[in-house]
Structures are given as C-alpha cells and as structure tokens.
C-alpha cells in the first residue's frame, strides 16, 4: 500500500472542513470534445485531502465526462492532471488506479452473476492466484466495519439492492487503496433514508484523509456533505466556493444561469368526467406473489392524481396493468369509458393512454435509434409518417425538428442516436412523443427522477398544461414534494391497495406518511 494509507493510523485525521496544504489532485484546463458538443471546456478543479468536494451541475453539464477523463476512460483533448504535485498521464483505468484514484460510476460496473467477493477480487491482482475470493473476504469485513459499509461477501450481485451495489462499488475502490474517490451521482439510486447512511460513510473517509469528489445536481446535498463546491455549466466551471458560503438560491443561479421560479403556475382544477378507472384490480408481481389486492382508483379528466407510497407496494405493477404490460388476474380497467382490461399495450395506447415509463432508457426509447425515429415510434404506422408500407422520412424529419424545438430537446441533430443524450433530454423526447398525440390519459411513473432543476421544471409545466387541456394524469412518484406540488388529489398506496385518497389541501406530509406505512385507517 502507499504512504498515505500507512500514515493514516499515526496521524490524527485532519480537521473536517478545514483541510489545508497543497491539493492532492488538480485537473488543469481539461478540454474534451464530442462530435457536436464541447463537453468540458478548460475545466480546472483542485481537490484536497480530507475534503468532500461537490461537483454540481445540471444534466449534460459535463460532470461525468470530466471524471471519466480523470479515470482514464476518456482521453482529454487538452489539459493536464496533477496528483500529489506530480504531473501524470492517465491513459486507462489501470493508470488511474495506480495514482490512487477510485470511481463509483453512475451506472454500476458489477458482474451480476458473481459474488461480492469475486467482484472485489477482480481488482486485486496482488491477492495471488488461488482462491482469491476467499482471501478478500477478510478484507471486505475489515473495511466494511471501518467505514460502516455492511456487505455480505458471499452474496451474488443480482440478489442485492441498488444501495448495496453502491456499497460494493465503494468497497472495491477503498480496498484497492484509493485515496481519491469519485462518486458519480451516488444519491440518485438511494432512498432518502439511505442517503444519510452514505453521508456517514463519506464523513469517515474524509476523516481518514481521503479526498472525495461528489457529483450531484441536488442542491440540498451540497450543504449537507460538501466542504467546497465547484459548479459546472455547459462544460465550463462557473465557480469554486466553500459550501458554507453559498445558499440554495446562489447555487441555482450558478447552475442554471438564471433564477428558477419555485412555485408553479396552477389554474383551478376543473375536473369533469372519468378519464381512467381501476376497479378491484388484482395482479401478481414477477415472482408470482400478489402485488395488487383489490385496488380501486379513479382519475377524472382535467385532474392530476398523485400516487404516493413506499417503493414496492404495488406501484410498478399497477402502472404495468394499466398500460397493458401485465395481466390483471381480476378486476377491470376503463379508459375514457371503454373497457380495456388485459388488452395489449398497443390497443391501450390507441385508446388514448400515454405512458411515461419508470425506466426511461430501456422502456422509453430505443437507445440505438435516432432522435427522429424515437419521436415517431408511437405513430410511424400512420400517415403522414407512413405512405403505404414505406416511411416518409421527410415528414418524419419535419416532425422531429418541430418537436425538438417545442420541447427544447438538446441534441446535436435529429439523426443523433438517443443513447448519446443526457437523461433529461431523453425524458423530454419521451414526453414530446407521448404528449404530441394529445392523449386523454397520461400515466407518468417517476417522470423527474434523476433529472436536474430545469428539466424537472419543464416536465412539471408540460404535465400541468396537459391537465388544463383536459387530460387525466396519474402521477406515480416517490418524491412527496413533487406529488404535493402537482396533484389535485393524492392517493396513497399500501400493500397493493389504496389506503386513502385525499384532496391536496388535506394532504399533509404527516398524514400521508402514516397512510404510507399502514398506520392510519
């Protein structure tokens, strides 16, 4: 191991929040260009030992690109990296690891079929050839207790939850001796109560003299954990400031480049007539156990019903039954007065239901196809996009350009493959496609999860506008603030049933919290 690690036990940990001395890591004037975008434009970032340094920016600001450069996954077009005062060239992750850099990527890189120990042993050549998984088990337990990262070395990755995956990724980096740890949007996969657990881990690492780069687009997290914060906007550094010196508003200003209105304009609800109804629905989950147990819920035209609840109480199954992706064992589904129980997804879509799915990358788009093609996925079979058996690409491109402008989809071109877009822009694309057909019913599952401030605001406005135009919206969200800000009525789901439906005026977080946990009748 390296000198810093060895010195850990003999030196007292540096005072939290007041790290001093030369930076452990410096990125100087990093520039990285992709076809059509300047993802990093002369970015300079200095990180000290014993600090949590937040990297804040909207989606597409270039945060992931910057740390991928640091980790050797991308080669910068210009700029230099200095570790411990020495200039280094990082050509591959191997070089990065040798410099003491570890990364917990946004999308975890774990072998699903292997055990925790095998995944960790993969990165430890020094453990010897024979039975490496056995040998690392002891070290896993040792590091796990030191940093409060409980993990079962023998468990297989596919058996674990996202937060456990994250712990394995952190362990992987720490056991390899990383002094500089990069976490790319680590809280996006965590439930609110799990976030504080992660922060405890980061504080212990900081106390041990590690440097932590913490990527986020959530403002509250900056104040909660960071010592300093660097704000990126459109590939450029806006500023680096001590986290204690800035408030929320100033951060938004830096991140978005303008003030964002925090109150949404909302006309009075004019709900009339039934848009969507579920009656006594029963359905099973993937493992064949009952997930919906006689669920009844109605959404009227011109209203938003928010569905609140703790994950795993049947939200996903409900959305799937309503959109034709899962069979209802019993019960009925009605859309705009027509019975569509157990009809195909295509039939339900034609009946006027728009679906904004939970997993936007895998279910919402075909990532390898272009923006234009994805925009007509719902309607390519009909004129004006189809002429007999052929597609009219002129019409498709015209429509795509209209949608890109109207929904502010940031893409180099209409012919760019969707996989190159950021999450917020993929979501805008999905909304453009789903809402352009003016559906009478919108089922939106976690529409803003993982999105930045301006994308979230944009999507909220779109949903409200459709509601004013008379659509019935079912909004499934784990973000209670979002539900309370948008919904006219709040339905709380608990163990496959609706525990209660409250008008938003009566829906206090306390009351909803009790219903969510099954403590109120």
């Amino acid at each position: 191991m390296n000198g810093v690690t060895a010195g850990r036990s003999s030196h007292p940990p540096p005072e939290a929040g007041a790290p001093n001395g030369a930076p452990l890591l410096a990125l100087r004037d990093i520039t990285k260009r992709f076809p059509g975008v300047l993802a990093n434009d002369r970015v300079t970032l200095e990180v000290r030992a014993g600090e949590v340094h937040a990297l804040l920016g909207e989606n597409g600001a270039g945060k992931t690109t910057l740390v991928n450069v640091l980790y050797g996954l991308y080669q910068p077009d210009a700029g230099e990296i200095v570790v411990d005062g020495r200039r280094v060239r990082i050509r591959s992750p191997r070089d990065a690891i040798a410099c003491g850099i570890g990364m917990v990527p946004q999308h975890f890189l774990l072998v699903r079929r292997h055990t925790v120990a095998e995944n960790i042993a993969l990165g430890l050549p020094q453990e010897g050839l024979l039975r490496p998984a056995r040998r690392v088990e002891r070290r896993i337990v040792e590091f796990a207790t030191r940093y409060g990262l409980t993990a079962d070395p023998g468990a297989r990755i596919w058996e674990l939850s996202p937060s456990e995956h994250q712990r394995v990724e952190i362990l992987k980096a720490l056991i390899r001796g990383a002094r500089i740890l990069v976490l790319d949007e680590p809280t996006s996969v965590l439930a609110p109560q799990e976030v504080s657990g992660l922060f405890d881990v980061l504080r212990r690492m900081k106390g041990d003299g590690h440097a932590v780069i913490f990527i986020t687009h959530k403002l509250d997290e900056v104040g909660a954990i960071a010592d300093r914060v660097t704000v990126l906007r459109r590939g450029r550094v806006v500023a680096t400031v001590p986290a204690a010196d800035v408030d929320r508003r100033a951060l938004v200003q830096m991140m978005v480049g303008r003030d964002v209105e925090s109150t949404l304009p909302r006309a009075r609800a004019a709900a009339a007539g039934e848009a969507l109804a579920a009656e006594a629905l029963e359905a099973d989950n993937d493992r064949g156990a009952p997930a919906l147990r006689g669920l009844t819920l109605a959404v009227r035209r011109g209203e938003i019903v928010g569905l609140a609840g703790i994950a795993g109480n049947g939200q996903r199954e409900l959305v799937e039954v309503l959109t034709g992706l899962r069979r209802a064992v019993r019960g009925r589904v009605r859309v705009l007065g027509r019975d569509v129980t157990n009809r195909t997804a295509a039939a339900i879509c034609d009946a006027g239901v728009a679906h904004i799915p939970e997993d936007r990358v895998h279910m919402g788009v075909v990532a390898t196809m272009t923006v234009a093609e994805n925009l007509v996925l719902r309607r390519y079979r009909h004129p004006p996009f189809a002429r007999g058996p052929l597609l009219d690409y002129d019409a498709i491109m015209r429509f795509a350009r209209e949608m890109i402008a109207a929904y502010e989809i940031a893409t180099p071109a209409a012919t760019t493959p969707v996989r190159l877009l950021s999450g917020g822009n993929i979501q805008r694309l999905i909304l453009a496609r789903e809402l352009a057909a003016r559906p009478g019913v919108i089922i939106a599952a976690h529409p803003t999860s993982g999105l930045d401030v301006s994308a979230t605001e944009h999507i909220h406005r779109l949903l409200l506008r459709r509601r004013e135009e008379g659509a019935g919206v079912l909004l499934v969200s784990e973000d209670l603030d979002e539900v309370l800000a948008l919904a006219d009525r709040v339905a709380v789901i608990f163990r496959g049933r609706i525990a209660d439906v409250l008008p938003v005026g009566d829906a206090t977080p306390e009351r909803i919290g009790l219903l969510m946990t099954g403590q109120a009748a």
Partner: protein
Amino acid sequence: MEEGNWILATVIRAVALGTPILWGTLGEITAERSGVINLGVEGMMILGALAAFVVAHLTGQPTAGLVVAAAVGGAAALLHAFISITLRANQYVSGLALTMFGLGLAGLLGRGWEGRPLLDTLPEISALTYAGLGVAVALWVVFYHTRWGIVLRSVGEMPAAADALGVNVALVRYLAVAFGGVMAGAAGAFLSLAYRPAWTEGMTAGMGWIVIAIAIFAAWDPLRAVAGALLFGALFHLSFRLQAWVAPELLKMMPFAFTILALAATAGGRRGLGAPEALGTPYVTGER
C-alpha cells in the same frame, strides 16, 4: 460372448470419439467464457487434422504432428480473434467464415495426401482421453477457484467492469480464443493420427458443430462438458455401427438431430441457462 465384445468395443470407440469432442468443447467453452463465440471450430479442427497428418507423415513423429496441429489451430483462431476483437466485426459471421475457409483450404492442400497410409500413429488413445479429462478438471479449478477464472468470467459477463478495474479485456479475449484454437487443432490431430490414422477430406464430419452445441448445454461448465462429449461420442459411433441396418443418411443426421433436441430441452425458457452475458458482443471502452 460375441455380443459382450460388441458392446465393449462400442464403449471403447465411443470414448475414443468423445475425446476430440471433449478437447474441442473445452477450448470453445474457454473462448465463450471470455465473451467470444467462435463458430470456426470445424475449420480449425480440419486444419489441425491435415497439418498433423502431413507433419507426422513427413517426419515420422506423431507428437510433432500434434504440436504443429495445435499451433495451426491457434493461428487460425488468432485470425478470428483479430477480426472479431480488434476489428470488432460480427463474431458469428467471422467464425462461419473461418469454418468455410478451413474446410476449403484443407480440401485443397490435402489433395495429394488422401489414401496414404500413416505408419507412425499416436498409439495410446486412452492416455489422450485421460489428458482431456485432466484438462477438464484443471479448467474447472481455474474457472472457479483462481484469479484468472474471475478475470476470464468477468470479461465474458461484463467487460466494462473488468476494464474499469484495469483488466486488459482484449488481451484476455485473445488468449482465450487462441486457447480454443489450440484445443480444436489438437482435436483434429487426434482424428488423423489416432482415431483413424489417415487423411480424408471432410473427416471431421461436423464434429465442430457438435462442440459448439455441447458448450451450450454443458452450461459452459468444463465438467459437464465431459458428460456431453462422451454422450456424443457414443452417438457418433453408433451412427457408424448401425450402418448395416439403418439408412446411412439417417444415421449421419442422428448426432445433429440429437443436438437440436438437447438444445431445445436445455434452453430453459426465456432466461436461458446462463450464457456469459457479453457473449457475442464486441467491447469498446467508454461506449454507452
């Protein structure tokens, strides 16, 4: 007694025919565990068979024939590796091309060698069978109880994870594919030096395809490959044995018909039986 001898002889021949199938399968399993499918087994085997025969004939050294055959198989596999790993071409097309190329080239170069007797053969078939079993056990240990095994399997399951930990994905894949070629070449040598010491065009008779099928329904496990290889050795042999009673065309189909049945039975519905997740997909650093 007559009958007893017949059964014993059948078993011995079945084990003998199972041996090259086993060698080929172990090689293919290793390659596929790294994420590269190589449909060129048939081509590598036939090239190995011809090379072994020619070298043994010229030098009088069957062992030299075996070594050269292994080298030829490895070289042919490197061609596939270059095309599918470095150039990232479609693995299935490249492998098929290798089979066609191997069969064609061996047919062409082998013209003058057909019908010549081979005096110095590999005598001890059983020793070669045991060697195959030894390799199977060794591979099982390597796959599941060594660091190399973790690296190999991770590269085949999720190359991005291995890459992020500093593993050279391309190198691992090259080595695994080359090992597959070496084993296939050696399997070919077995056919032309030991099983039926002679050179005939097309003498591998579709064995390379059986190998690919066994890799699948052995669920990429070297020990299960042993059972599969013996079973198919028996089927292959029976198809020769029963020629007096059943139409030869039907018999020739038997191992392949059985392959289809076995694959259908082990497909395991939607999820399959655990093929390496990245099997057949080229890896590009940082691709999303």
